């Protein structure tokens, strides 16, 4: 690629072709310069400006483009139009690019202005290519717009049913396999009647209230409870007795080791 393709060859060309925003505003679609929301970002605006050069994007003048863009931004600011930040960022960057492009080559820093300009040009080419692709894609014969599908298709009924097969033996075998493989980790606690400590305390202290005599702990248990409830009640009542004794509400007596435990109201 020659420099000429990349850059505007010289000032004379740009001054001939392009006389600033004022001229551009007088083109057929001057509204362009007022319509700020018309572009999807700075790159879009640049592409639009580049297209106005009416040359292949590969041979656009980046310098002219930069001037047009900066002119547009100036114009917009003069009109007190609110500019999105990215337009201003681009303007600053392009102003930098412009000054770099105008510098003699040997004074340029890395990356060179030509390289930056080339990248910009490549980006514009890519965006331009996609813009054309959009137009061509949307112009195709589209279903529902240009071609139509059958309005009322009968539909294909393919009821796919699966019939599962399995037999008793497989079932039992599977269960045995599971059992052989695992020790069940389910802990299933069956509902079980218990007597809580609270109810034992109230029951024992209530019963102590009706007699002064020593009575065996077993006498304080619910008389008709089944075996499991009785075991729970015995344990609860024993703890209840200790608790009541601690509070001074009962006396406990046991005459021999493992002998019957007896309770009474304090005398």
């Amino acid at each position, binding site marked *: 690629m020659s420099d000429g393709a990349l850059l505007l060859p010289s000032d004379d060309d740009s001054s001939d072709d392009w006389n600033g925003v004022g001229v551009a505003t007088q083109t057929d679609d001057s509204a362009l310069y007022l319509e700020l929301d018309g572009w999807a970002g700075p790159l879009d605006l640049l592409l639009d400006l580049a297209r106005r050069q009416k040359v292949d994007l590969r041979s656009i003048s980046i310098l002219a483009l930069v001037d047009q863009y900066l002119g547009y931004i100036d114009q917009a600011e003069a009109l007190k139009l609110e500019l999105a930040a990215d337009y201003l960022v681009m303007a600053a960057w392009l102003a930098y690019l412009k000054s770099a492009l105008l510098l003699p080559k040997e004074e340029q820093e890395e990356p060179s202005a030509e390289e930056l300009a080339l990248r910009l040009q490549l980006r514009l080419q890519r965006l331009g290519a996609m813009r054309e692709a959009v137009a061509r894609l949307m112009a195709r014969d589209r279903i529902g717009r240009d071609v*139509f*599908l*059958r*309005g*009322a298709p*009968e*539909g*294909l*009924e*393919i*009821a*796919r*049913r*699966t*019939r*599962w*097969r*399995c*037999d*008793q033996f*497989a*079932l*039992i075998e*599977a*269960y*045995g*396999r*599971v*059992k*052989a*493989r*695992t*020790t*069940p*980790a*389910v802990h*299933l*606690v*069956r*509902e*079980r*009647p*218990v*007597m*809580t400590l*609270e*109810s034992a305390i109230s*029951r024992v202290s209530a019963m102590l209230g009706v007699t002064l005599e020593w009575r065996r702990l077993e006498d304080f248990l*619910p008389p008709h*409870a089944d075996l499991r*409830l009785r075991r*729970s*009640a015995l344990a609860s009542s024993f703890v209840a007795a200790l608790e009541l004794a601690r509070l001074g509400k009962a006396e406990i007596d046991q005459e021999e080791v493992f002998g019957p435990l007896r309770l009474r109201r304090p005398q």
Partner: protein
Amino acid sequence: MNVSLERALEAALFAAEEPMNVDSLSGILGDAPKEEIRASLSDLASHYEERGVHLVQRGGRWHFETAPDLAHLLRREREQQRKLSRAATEVLAIVAYHEPVSRAEIEAIRGVQTSGGTLDVLMEAGWVRIAGRREVPGRPTIYATTPEFLDHFGLSSRKDLPGLAELRAAGLLDPVDEAFDAVIGDGDDNAGFMAETDDSAD
């Protein structure tokens, strides 16, 4: 034969969402003469006579439909037989022996995670159903077998599950015996399977 009219009619009837009469066809086709439309429709109908799609007129309205002799192709039930996978068989067995049972319980018994797909397969097969929710925190869904399950496996009731007594005698069911008894013994699903009871003494 008016080729362009015929093409237009063909397209219009193809795209139409309901059968169309000559009047409305004429309207679509820029007020084409109805006599020509009728003639073209009849040409079209003969063109399609031998094809897989027919152009037919019912009560003055025209539409395309597939040839009646091909109906069997388009409405076909395809049944495939598949053997229940090993995992699915195990899950089915567990549901049968322990029902109603939650997925977590199935997993605990199997000792491996059970994919939801496995239970779906069993439900699709019609052998397992959702039997409600267990009234414990999280309210897990519980599963049970269906009458179809009994049919398929030739059981008159779950108590007939072959090998049940033998399995139990062999101690294979021991660790969950209590729960099993509770379920078998009374039909009350919500018997607070796992809930700690409060004071039920008084």
